[in-house]
C-alpha cells in the first residue's frame, strides 16, 4: 500500500510526537552548578585562545568542556589541535620552546583527517600562550620538539656525501664498487667467495664482485644492473653513500633517479681498445650531460680496465684529453674534474696505490682520496621539508615504510608529514638514518628510512614527495621550463623525469628562444629549437605531479634525452 495517499502523505513528525520528545536532553539536564562551571570554563577557554577564538564554534567549546569534565587545559589543547594547528617544526619558529605538538588524539578522532591550512606565523600567538600548558600523552608518536638545526650543529659528526657511479654499459661500474667495498672491509672475503661460487654455477664468474651490488634475480642472471643499488662506507672524515647506476639506455630513468640524489659523480670509462670509442657514442656522453643537468658539479673520471692495455700511459692521456674536452664543453669546470687510472677487478688505485710496476707512472691520488677531497654541496637545512620517496615497503616496524633522501629541510620523530600528490597526512613513528641506526631527527642530505603511521599504503608510491604540511609542495599539470636542448625540440610528446618521478606529457608550445649568456628573448614562438640552444617551453602532463620552481627536470623522447632545464 505504499502508493496510497495516506501513506505517501504521512506526517512523521506528528506521529513521533506521540512517543515523547527526543529533544536535546543535555542542556536541560545541566544542573545549576554545571551551568556555572560551563560558563566559567567557556570564558577561560575563550581567553586562552585569544585571537583565534573565532575559529572555534561555541557549541564545540561546551561539548569539549563537558567531555573533559571541566578540565580547561585539556579542552584548550584539543580545540587547538582540531581548529587551529600550531606549527610542527620547532626549527622554523625562533624560540624553540613554543611549539607544542599537534598530534593530540582524543576520543578516537583520527587526526590524519585534519588538514593544516595555516602558516606558522599566525599560530605563534596561541602557542606562546599555550606553552605553559601540559600536553597529553598520546597514542601517536610523541615528538620531543627538538630544535633539529641546533642538534645537528652540536653533533658535528662526519660529513655525509653521496655519489653516483655512471658510465656506458659494461664499463665496470658495479664490479669496481664491489671491489671498493671489499678493499674497505665493508664486505668480507668470505661473502665474495660465496658469491663467486654462485656465479660460477650460472657461468658468470667474472661478475662475482658486481653481485655485491646487483642483488636482483634478473640483474644477476643477465649480468646487468637494472636499478640503482645503494651501499655505504665510511672513511676517517666522511660517511659515503654509493649509488650504483645502470648503464643501459633503457634504464636511464633509474639513473636519473640516482643522479638526483647525489652530490658528485664517478664516471667510469672502459679503456680497452675499441670500448672507449663505442662508449663515447653511447652512454658516456649522455650520462655526462644528465649529470651536469642534475646540478652535480664535481666529477671524478675513473679510467677502468687499464690492466688490459698494460697500463699504457699514452692510452690514459689520450682518454683524459678527449674526455676533459667534452666535459668542459658540457659545463664542468676543469678544477672540478679529476682523472684516476684504476683497475676495478684487481683493485689498483681504488683504495691502495697500484703495485703493478707498469702503473708506476701514476703518482696522483687514489679514488677514495679523490672522493674525500670532494666537498659536498651546501645543504638546504632551513628550507621547508622536501623528501623524494625512492622506495616503499613493509617492515616489522610499520605497515608502511619509505626510504629516500631529504632534499631540503629537516624532520624529527613524531612529525606530521604530507604526501603529495595524494595529499594524505602521515605521522613519523620512527626513523633510521645511514643504514639502519635509529635516530630522533634527520636533516637534508641524509638518506633515511621513515616508518609511517596513520596512512593508507595505496596513497604512497615511489616518486611521490613528502613535504611539510605547513608549506606543502603544489601539484601541477602544466609548467614552464627554461631548457637547454640536446636534440631538436618541437611540440611533441615527451617523458618528464625529476629524480624518481617519471610522468608522460607533451611540449605544448615553445614560447621563446633565449640567449645562452644574457637570457634575453631572441626569437618568439619558433617552429623548432635546435640543439645547444636555450629556450622557454611549456609542458603539459597527463596527470598532476608535485613540482615547484627551481627544480631540475629532464625531458626524454624516443629513448633519447632531448632537453634538461630548470622549472620556472
Amino acid at each position: 500500500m505504499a502508493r496510497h495517499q495516506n501513506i505517501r502523505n504521512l506526517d512523521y513528525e506528528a506521529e513521533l510526537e506521540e512517543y515523547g520528545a527526543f529533544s536535546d536532553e543535555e542542556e536541560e539536564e545541566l544542573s545549576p552548578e554545571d551551568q556555572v562551571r560551563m560558563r566559567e570554563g567557556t570564558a577561560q577557554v575563550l581567553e586562552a585562545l585569544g585571537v583565534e577564538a573565532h575559529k572555534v564554534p561555541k557549541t564545540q567549546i561546551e561539548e569539549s568542556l563537558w567531555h573533559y569534565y571541566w578540565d580547561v587545559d585539556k579542552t584548550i589543547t584539543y580545540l587547538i589541535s582540531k581548529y587551529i594547528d600550531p606549527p610542527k617544526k620547532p626549527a622554523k619558529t625562533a624560540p624553540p620552546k613554543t611549539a607544542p605538538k599537534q598530534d593530540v588524539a582524543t576520543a578516537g578522532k583520527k587526526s590524519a583527517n585534519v588538514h593544516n591550512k595555516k602558516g606558522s606565523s599566525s599560530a605563534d600567538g596561541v602557542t606562546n600562550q599555550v606553552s605553559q600548558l601540559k600536553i597529553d600523552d598520546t597514542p601517536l608518536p610523541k615528538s620531543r620538539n627538538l630544535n633539529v638545526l641546533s642538534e645537528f650543529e652540536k653533533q658535528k659528526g662526519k660529513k655525509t656525501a653521496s655519489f653516483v657511479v655512471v658510465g656506458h654499459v659494461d664499463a665496470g661500474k658495479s664490479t669496481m664498487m664491489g671491489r671498493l667495498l671489499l678493499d674497505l672491509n665493508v664486505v668480507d672475503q668470505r661473502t665474495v667467495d660465496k658469491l663467486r661460487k654462485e656465479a660460477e654455477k650460472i657461468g658468470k664468474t667474472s661478475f662475482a664482485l658486481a653481485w655485491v651490488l646487483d642483488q636482483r634475480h634478473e640483474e644477476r642472471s643477465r649480468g646487468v644492473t637494472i636499478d640503482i643499488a645503494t651501499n655505504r662506507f665510511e672513511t676517517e672524515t666522511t660517511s659515503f653513500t654509493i649509488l650504483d647506476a645502470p648503464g643501459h639506455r633503457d634504464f636511464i630513468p633509474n639513473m636519473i633517479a640516482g643522479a638526483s640524489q647525489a652530490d658528485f659523480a664517478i664516471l667510469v670509462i672502459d679503456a680497452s681498445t675499441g670500448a672507449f670509442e663505442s662508449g663515447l657514442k653511447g652512454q658516456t656522453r649522455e650520462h655526462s650531460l644528465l649529470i651536469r643537468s642534475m646540478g652535480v658539479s664535481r666529477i671524478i673520471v675513473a679510467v677502468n680496465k687499464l690492466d688490459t692495455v698494460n697500463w699504457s700511459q699514452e692510452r690514459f692521456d689520450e682518454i683524459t684529453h678527449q674526455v676533459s674536452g667534452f666535459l668542459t664543453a658540457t659545463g664542468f669546470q676543469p678544477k672540478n674534474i679529476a682523472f684516476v687510472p684504476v683497475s676495478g677487478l684487481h683493485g689498483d688505485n681504488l683504495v691502495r696505490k697500484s703495485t703493478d710496476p707498469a702503473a708506476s707512472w701514476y703518482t696522483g691520488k687514489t679514488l677514495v682520496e679523490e672522493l674525500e677531497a670532494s666537498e659536498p654541496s651546501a645543504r638546504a637545512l632551513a628550507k621547508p621539508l622536501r623528501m623524494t620517496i625512492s622506495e616503499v615497503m613493509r617492515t616489522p616496524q610499520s605497515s608502511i615504510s619509505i626510504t629516500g633522501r631529504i632534499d631540503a629541510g629537516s624532520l624529527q620523530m613524531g612529525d606530521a608529514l604530507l604526501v603529495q600528490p595524494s595529499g594524505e597526512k602521515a605521522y613519523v613513528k620512527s626513523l633510521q638514518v645511514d643504514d639502519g641506526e635509529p635516530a630522533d631527527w634527520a636533516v637534508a642530505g641524509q638518506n633515511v628510512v621513515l616508518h609511517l603511521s596513520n596512512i593508507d599504503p595505496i596513497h604512497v608510491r615511489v616518486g611521490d614527495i613528502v613535504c611539510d604540511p605547513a608549506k606543502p609542495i603544489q601539484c601541477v599539470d602544466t609548467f614552464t621550463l627554461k631548457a637547454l636542448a640536446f636534440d631538436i625540440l618541437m611540440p611533441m610528446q615527451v617523458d618528464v623525469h625529476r629524480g624518481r618521478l617519471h610522468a608522460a606529457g607533451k611540449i605544448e608550445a615553445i614560447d621563446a628562444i633565449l640567449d645562452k649568456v644574457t637570457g634575453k628573448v631572441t626569437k618568439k614562438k619558433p617552429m623548432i629549437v635546435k640543439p645547444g640552444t636555450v629556450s622557454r617551453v611549456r609542458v603539459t602532463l597527463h596527470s598532476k605531479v608535485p613540482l615547484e620552481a627551481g627544480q631540475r627536470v629532464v625531458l626524454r623522447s624516443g629513448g633519447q634525452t632531448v632537453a634538461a632545464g630548470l622549472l620556472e
Partner: protein
Amino acid sequence: MRFTNPKHSLSTLDPSGESPVSLLPTTPEDMWHAHNLIAPSDLLRAHAIRKVVTTGSTGSTTSDRVHTDLTIRVQSVFFDPAASSLHVSGTVCQENQYVSLGQHHTLDLELNRPFQLWKHSGWDSVSLKMLEEAVAEDTGEAMCAVVMQEGLANICLITEFQTVVKQRVEANIPKKRAGGSASQGGMTSFYEKTLATLLRTVDFSQPRPLLLASPGFVAQDFRGYMQSEGQKRTDKKLQRMAKDAVVVHSSTGYVHSLNEVLKSPEVQATMRDKRFTGETALMDQLYDRLRKDDGRAWYGAKPVERAVKEGAVGRGGGVLLINNKFFRSLDIKTRKRFVALVDKVKEDGGEARVLSSDHESGQRLDALGGIAAILTYPIYDLDEDEVEEGGEGEESGAAAEEGAMII
C-alpha cells in the same frame, strides 16, 4: 557500416543534403565513423526509448518506456572510445504522439539499428571521404598491443582507425632489500594482474596479433610468464597466444611509445598495408623535414593556410596533413575554410591526408596543432608575420613572394 538499402551507394548520394542518408552500423568501430559523420546542427533520426509519464485521474503517475523513432537537431556528440558508444543530444524537431517540439533528447546509437542523417550544409568533400571510409569493407581483426614497463602496463587495441587504450594496469613493485628476493614476487604478481586484465578486456576467441613492447626485459619476461602459465593451466589457447606474441622494444611503457612499436620491422612485416603504417610513415617524413628546417615543412593553422593559398602545397611532393578531430567540432564557417584548403590542395595536385586523430600518428600531429604541411618548395618566413602587428595582408603577400624567390 553499410547503407540500409543495398541499392543505395555513394554514387546515388545527394550532395546537397536534402535527402537523408540511411546507414546501418554493424561493428563497434562504426560508432567511431558515426562520430565523424554526425556534426552539430545536422538532423538525425533514430530509434529511441523515451520515458513518458502519464498521470491518471486518481492522481497516480505511471511512467512508461516507449519505443519510437525520433528526429533531433544535433547539439552535441559524445563518444566513449572504451565502450565504443555514441551519445547524440539535441532538440526534437519532428513532433509525434509522445514528444513535443523542442524537447531535449539524447539518442544512444545502437548496433544493427539504422539511422538517418541529414547534413546541415550538404556533403562536402571531407565528409564524403569519411563516408566512403565508413562503408568500405571491414579489413580484418584489430591488433592488440601491450606497452609496459616495471609497474605499468597499457593494454591497447589498434584498429584500422583508432587506437583505444582498453585498460591501464599499475602496480607498486617493492624494490630489492639487502639479501631478500622479495622483488621477484612483486613482478610476478604484476604479470598475473596484467594477464588477467588482458584476457578480460580483449576478446581472444578469434586469433589476433599480440604485441608486447617494453624497455629492458619486461616484455620478454611477461611472455615467458604467459608460456609457463599456459603450461600450468594446460590452456592451449594461452600457450598459442604466448607463442605467437611478438616482443618489440620500446623506450617507455607509456602509450605514446606505440609510435616506435609501429615503426619496428617486426610490425611492418605483418601489417604492411594497414592504414596506420602509412600514416606513421607520413608523420616521420614530416618530422624529418622539420628537423632539417629547410622551410619545406610547417605546422599550425596560420602558416599552413598561407602556404596553401599561395599554392605551395601542390604537385611534386606537397602534402597537407589534417587531423579529423579538426573537422568534428568546428563551427560551419571554420569548417568551410578548412574544407576549402583540402579542396585547393587536391586541385593543385598535391596530396591531402586526413589523419585519424585516435592513432599515435594523429596524436603526434595533434601535438603540433592538428594541421601541418610539406611544401613543394621552401618558404622561410611563414611564421614571422604573426609577430608583427598590422599590415598583415600586404606584408604577408610580399614576404611570401620574397620567400618564394629565395629558392
